[in-house]
């Protein structure tokens, strides 16, 4: 089991390295010159050269990457092209916001999705149809629009929750919770639809397996068969979907943070896009990849827990 984890850890670090390189190169190879973007089209050639030199863009790519990576592993992502402030510190303050938002929404989506999926797998055909409708709607409603609808309902028409803004957990857990409820629901709905569908399909498949028939025929309780045995056997694809949903919600958080004015990584990236502040976007990309890698690692560990075959071999 330890070797399994070690192997996954090594491959995760490799993945992170490659992804950082790829996103670095992608961004460096994009059409358009940062100097032109920052200075506008009317500056002199000397001014462009001076800025390129100041930003280190006149050095070879590999050297740019090496310097950038060397600093990045220490959490130093350089300075903003716009404000000149160090990016690492700025993002470190924003990380807890995005983490609270996305992890909370993933948990909510998983709980909701699994509950819905189980009901749909074990109930009658009509209940299954209802779940289908809910999942279709959940997948079809864009998060940013749902967020606005929730704001009109629960912050404008019936003002029980704050429309925008974020309160740090340390500043007051209840206020923190209240500031996140609408963003969580907004993000979670689409993800829960996906998880519900996967839960229904894999649980349905497991419920058709011979061992379930043997269990039923030998009089074990339906509750135990569904929740303890079948759900555990169906868990691997469901966990995979939860991982996929996490990645999707991370992307979705960029929009949802804008809707609810949450000062997270995503809104930093959006602001940076408007002001052509490329290093900030780069740094957020690396942070996002780190989060994805960490969550995938956690999900791998969960696989090992539910699947004895992985644990032993």
């Amino acid at each position, binding site marked *: 089991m330890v070797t399994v984890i070690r192997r996954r850890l090594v491959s995760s670090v490799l*993945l992170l390295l*490659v*992804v950082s390189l790829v*996103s670095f190169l*992608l*961004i460096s190879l*994009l059409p358009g010159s*940062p100097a032109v973007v920052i200075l506008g089209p009317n500056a002199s050639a000397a001014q462009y050269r001076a800025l390129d030199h100041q930003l280190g863009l006149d050095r070879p790519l590999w050297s740019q990457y090496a310097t950038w990576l060397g600093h990045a592993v220490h959490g130093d992502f350089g300075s903003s092209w716009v404000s000149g402030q160090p990016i690492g510190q700025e993002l470190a303050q924003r990380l807890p916001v995005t983490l609270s938002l996305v992890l909370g929404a993933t948990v909510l989506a998983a709980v909701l999705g699994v509950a819905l999926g189980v009901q749909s797998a074990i109930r009658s055909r009509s209940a299954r149809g209802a779940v289908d409708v809910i999942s*279709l*709607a959940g*997948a*079809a*409603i*864009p998060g*940013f*629009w749902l967020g*606005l609808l929730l704001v*009109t309902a629960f912050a404008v*028409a019936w003002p029980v929750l704050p429309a925008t803004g974020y309160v740090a957990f340390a500043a007051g857990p209840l206020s923190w919770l209240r500031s996140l409820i609408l963003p969580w629901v907004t993000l979670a709905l689409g993800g829960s639809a996906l998880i519900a569908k996967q839960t229904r*399909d894999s649980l349905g*498949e497991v*419920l*058709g397996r*011979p*061992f*379930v*028939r*043997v*269990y*039923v*025929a*030998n*009089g*074990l309780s*339906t509750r*135990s068969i*569904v929740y303890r*045995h079948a759900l*555990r*056997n169906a868990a691997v694809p469901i966990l995979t979907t939860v991982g996929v949903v996490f*990645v999707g919600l991370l*992307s979705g958080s*960029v929009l949802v943070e*804008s*809707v609810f004015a949450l000062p997270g990584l995503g809104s930093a*990236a959006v602001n*940076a*896009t*408007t002001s*052509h*502040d*490329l290093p900030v*976007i780069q740094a957020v*990309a690396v942070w*996002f990849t780190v989060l*994805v890698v960490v969550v995938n690692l956690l999900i791998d560990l969960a696989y090992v827990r539910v*699947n*004895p*075959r992985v644990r*032993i071999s």
Partner: protein
Amino acid sequence: MRTVPRRPLAAAGACWLLLVTVVAVFAPWIAPYGSEDTDLGVALTGPGRAHPLGVDPLGRDELSRLIVGSRVTLAGVGIALAVFVVVGVAAGLVAGYLGGRTDRVLTRVLDLVLAIPAVLVLLAVLSLAPGGGLVPMLAFGVLSAPVSARVVRATSLQVREELYIAAARAFGLSAVQIVLRHVLRRVVNPTIVQAAIFAGTALIVQTGLAFLGFGPRPPAPSWGGSVQDASEVINRDPWLLYPCGLVIALTVLAFGLVGDGLRDASAGRWATERYLPSRSRRGAAAEPDAAAVLLSVRDLTVDAPVGPLIQDVSFDIAPGEALALVGESGCGKSITALATLGVLPAGLRRVSGTITVDGKDVTDPARLAAVRGRRIGYVCQEPMTALDPTFTVHAQLAEAVRHHRGVGRAEAGEIANTLLAQVRIPDPTAVAARYPHQLSGGLAQRACLALALAGDPALLIADEPTTALDVRVQAEILALLHTLRRDRGLAVLLITHDWGVVADQCDRAIVLYAGQIVETGPVEDLFRGPRHPYTQGLLAASRSLADPDAAPPRIGVAAPPLVTIPGVVPPPGHWPTGCRFADRCPHAAPACRAEPIELHRDGPLASRCVLSAPAPTTTR
């Protein structure tokens, strides 16, 4: 696509997409106002006759803005979709068809591309290519292409292994020709499904970027831009939020419905058998039945959509008795067992029959559930798949013991170990700690027996318990069954087609043919003088296997020796009116086919054959 009209939701989705596309194409001619014409006098006036969807904060007609905005929105989706399909299919075909190292490298690359946070790449693209345009959606298509590539790769890997491809290769077709002619055709369906699902995502991304202000330059309209405009005035007038959001949601929904419809049409219905009993209310009160019978089944009939699977099957089992259920595959042996336990696969239904255990009517599902495990245990044919692979043997046994006997955790563990010892597992504690996949077939079947005994049942229903095992292990399991019967006084309903097992283990036997009991009686009498030609055939076949010189049993006149029975069991839904065996019977006469044959008792045996029935002249 002939199947689409039968799926109203998918058809509705397709209609909506068609409508939106037509509107986008003819937008300038359809829109009632110029999409950028402002009339501040009517700003935010809400829906009315002049402006059916209201007016935005700058006094522009919302309907016109949505109509014209559909162009840039759908163009973005179209670009992303085209790239997604072309890049994905190309990469998937190359990886899947070439296989080997190319496949490994490409798969790695595809995984990496998927791991790149797409939204941030889009933002990076936008930060360097201001003014929006279609470049970000093109990038989104590339970044998502691995999704379609994976599906195409999996399909073409599978196609590659099929015979006709090998034949094509043998005919000297080049790889490119084979891919274009054969493989591409097979990946079309899964790709269309993926594309429909992706189109919905692309639409959300396109509108999302426009919502963030990275769409077309204002005042040019787009759907996402309309949501942004509306969001700025939600405190004053939430109305504007609805038209633009609904249009987006409906279009995404339409893509999803079409995708689902296409997938269902190409994959067939999701139809897994499910064994969970349906919930039902308890039925009539138990009828007292004084007989010393453990299990009594009366007139059991099970229907499937194709027709009945078993009809009017009745039998009794006394405590400690062993009853064999014999017949070829497809005669209804397993269905009889499952219906007796009330665990029929989904789609099958018991339409009549009563089941009595210990003299109490337990036909009602809730009562039958209470009997399962405690009075009747069940062992199936495939021990390797009969246990939950995610729990140790001990955990599964202990759970069943706790559930049935209501004992504590520690005591249940003890009993579980005792059970494992009783099924003659060498080193029970070591085996108990193992997972099912770590067991041999013989050990797994012993563990299954232990599980079936967890509730201390009086009857064991064993459905071909030795068929999947090798010969030596078969003998061991049979010996174990014998011991359990002797030591625990266990009654057994044994499903088998092995007459040797019947002779060794059983007191009485039932012969099933095409869903009916055709003969039943004590095993000794059945062996000595079977009345029904089917039983004779089965016995002769079994004897000719065991001992080629043995004379086949005969009936009345000299019959030709039946070593194998020609023909096959008629499938459910194709049963003849008269004797169901007539088509394969060497003695068949016109009378056999005239009308249903009754089960006639003749001495110790009862059989369903006109030859064994009393002649019509002697009946009164």
